[in-house]
């Protein structure tokens, strides 16, 4: 693996160019360009918040869309990186067949370009929080914990990259993978606390009956742990009343974040190894 990394370092200029190219091509023939990567989360969150506020919560916290966005932006990054990575090798096949470069640059560049979109979207999100604070002065939206955000972003990046290695390599041989990924991601959206709070899981009947096991297993999912962590590091705990009682919000449990970090690293290393074992066979795929 060290040799592969050295080779990758030799081609770092190509990686940078590839990312630039990726960013350029993505919205090349569209009138709104980069705005598209903001329109998707904004529209989704508008609809989600409307539904949550009016149909699902009795006493929704004020500014629920901020809580949804804080978890949804990282989720959509994960989703897009995985979906994009499935096709990276296949669309680059004409180049791969003609010229040598470390193949892993393709999924890496794809994930990095999605990551740049995530960071930009986060920037816009902070502007939005600031605007809300100015218009409706209330709690200062950010916390001291927000300083941990880079760590969370790094874990998210490694997790996405690891899965992207697996998916891009395997999908080159079995194109079923991308359909499986599509379904799994769709289900992931529901078992990740994006449109609800993890406190609902902790206080659910099924969790109380299982003596807390459900909540624990739920948090072993790195996506769930990360969604929670993003929400709780960026935003102050909301004031909610459930059944007329002011409900206490759980503080962020860092254990689960570190477990997510461990899982992410494992997936990154094994994914890279798998990719390297398969990469010479890409051109010869039947």
């Amino acid at each position: 693996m060290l040799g592969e990394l050295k080779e990758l370092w030799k081609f770092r200029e190509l990686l940078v160019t590839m990312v630039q190219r990726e960013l350029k091509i993505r919205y090349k023939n569209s009138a709104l360009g980069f705005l598209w990567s903001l329109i998707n989360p904004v529209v989704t969150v508008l609809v989600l918040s409307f539904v949550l506020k009016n149909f699902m919560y009795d006493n929704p916290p004020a500014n629920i869309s901020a809580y949804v966005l804080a978890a949804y932006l990282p989720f959509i990054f994960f989703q897009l990186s995985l979906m994009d990575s499935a096709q990276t090798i296949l669309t680059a096949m004409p180049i791969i067949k003609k010229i040598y470069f470390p193949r892993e640059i393709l999924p890496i560049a794809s994930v990095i370009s999605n990551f740049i979109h995530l960071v930009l979207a986060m920037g816009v999100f902070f502007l939005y929080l600031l605007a809300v604070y100015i218009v409706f002065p209330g709690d200062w939206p950010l916390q001291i914990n927000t300083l941990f955000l880079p760590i969370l972003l790094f874990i998210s990046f490694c997790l996405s990259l690891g899965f992207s290695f697996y998916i891009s390599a395997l999908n080159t041989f079995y194109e079923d993978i991308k359909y499986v990924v599509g379904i799994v991601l769709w289900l992931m959206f529901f078992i990740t606390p994006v449109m609800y709070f993890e406190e609902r899981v902790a206080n659910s009947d099924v969790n109380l009956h299982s003596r807390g096991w459900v909540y624990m297993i739920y948090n072993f999912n790195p996506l769930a742990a990360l969604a929670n962590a993003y929400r709780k590091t960026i935003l102050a705990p909301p004031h909610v009343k459930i059944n007329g009682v002011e409900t206490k919000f759980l503080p962020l449990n860092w254990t689960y974040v570190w477990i997510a970090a461990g899982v992410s690293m494992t997936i990154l290393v094994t994914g890279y190894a798998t990719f390297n074992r398969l990469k010479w066979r890409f051109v010869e795929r039947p």
Partner: protein
Amino acid sequence: MIEICDIRKEFLVNNSGARSLKTMILWWHRRKLQHHPVLKGVTFDVKQGECVAVIGRNGAGKSTLLSLLARVYKPTSGSMKIHGRVAPLLELGAGFHPDLTAYENIGFNAIILGLTRAQVRERIDKIIDFSELRSQIHAPTRTYSSGMLARLGFSVAVHVDAEVLIVDEVLSVGDYEFEQKCVRTIEEFRNSGGAVLFVSHRMDTIRAIADRCVWLHKGVVRKIGTPDEVIPEYESTPLETDEKR
């Protein structure tokens, strides 16, 4: 500069096409992977300042050989050593993205071939001048003709400080003037110590620029020698058809 020692390459040919679950269940007894040897032990070398042409009928393994040298494939067995940076030109516009402009593509291609971004900025004007395509340099390459793509590809390949140039039948689509320019450039390239390995079906081009000629026949080297030794024999060998085999 290039040492090729007993190189072999086998491809696995799957006669039922892509492997899906359906074909696996329905045709499991018929599905077999066939080994299809393309190169069966090829040995030769290219020295510094030398220009070697590879000739042979379609399917003799010429393109596979060049792809191996370009590190697109890994050989099944055997070894090859290349000293210096390789600029492979395996197909027109390989690595050109059709939606990007020629200008952007030049940069991208040059970086794959090993230049840094700073070097690309320095040289891009020279490359554009060489290709003689300045008036259309900001048009997307999907609007380019095959001759124009060949010009662009060749112009990049000779400006990346490569020591070894590997060319696969690219030059034959350019017009006469550009071909002459390429021949002159290859001549200069050799004089400065570079090595050239190319595939062509044009015997007059080979006679003009090649020092040696490697005749590949069904995956083995049939004859190596000067073009004057090899070409007459090659041309007088009747084309074998499938029935005769």
